[in-house]
């Protein structure tokens, strides 16, 4: 359905957002239409939640035309540390 893989998305997010941690899961059973992502980047610092998500959406604008379900959790390094402590 879409030509994108989790690995492709991970690489692109890492490169474009200078992300320190990216994990993309393919939730589509391989058809490539549904992904969920955890992204940690300094690029999110000082940005409101909506702005963080917008940054990711813009980075993947081309891909999101084909991927119909994309869910993201986007954190600054400091927020990510807190999230991991809670787990």
């Amino acid at each position: 359905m879409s030509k994108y893989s989790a690995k492709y998305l991970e690489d692109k997010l890492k490169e474009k957002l200078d992300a320190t941690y990216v994990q993309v899961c393919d939730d589509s059973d391989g058809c490539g239409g549904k992904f969920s992502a955890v992204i940690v980047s300094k690029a999110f610092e000082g940005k409101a939640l909506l702005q963080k998500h917008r940054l990711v959406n813009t980075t993947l604008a081309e891909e999101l035309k084909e991927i119909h379900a994309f869910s993201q959790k986007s954190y600054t390094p400091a927020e990510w540390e807190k999230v991991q402590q809670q787990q």
Partner: protein
Amino acid sequence: MPQVLASATPRWYSADTSAPPPAALDKATLDKLVRTNKVVVFMKGNPQAPRCGFSNAVVQIMRMHGVQYDAHDVLQNEALRQGIKDYTDWPTIPQVFIDGEFVGGCDILLQLHQSGDLIEELKKVGIVSELLKAEEAKDTAKK
């Protein structure tokens, strides 16, 4: 040349791809639409029968907080579906507005719900979340 179709021949009609896509709703129309209630949701399906897991998640969050809201089914109206995406420059449905302001989609709503910020956002527009009421009732009982 006359065309004769045998009655047993199945016939089907696919979308006429040469027809122009329906025009997206314009900004002025959407400016009004996002303000018809304090909370307005654009979703797939309706609150009684959401037709997408992400839209369903938003419906469930609103239900937990006891929020009265207006819902628009984008599957019923292609011009609305495209129009709202253009309006917010946001690629996906559902989309949630509070007081005419775009708040976000499913991920953001879920995160606002989990962090407790949704209660605050609702309070700003004069909606007291049911979760807050329950919390306060518990506190009163303790005292």
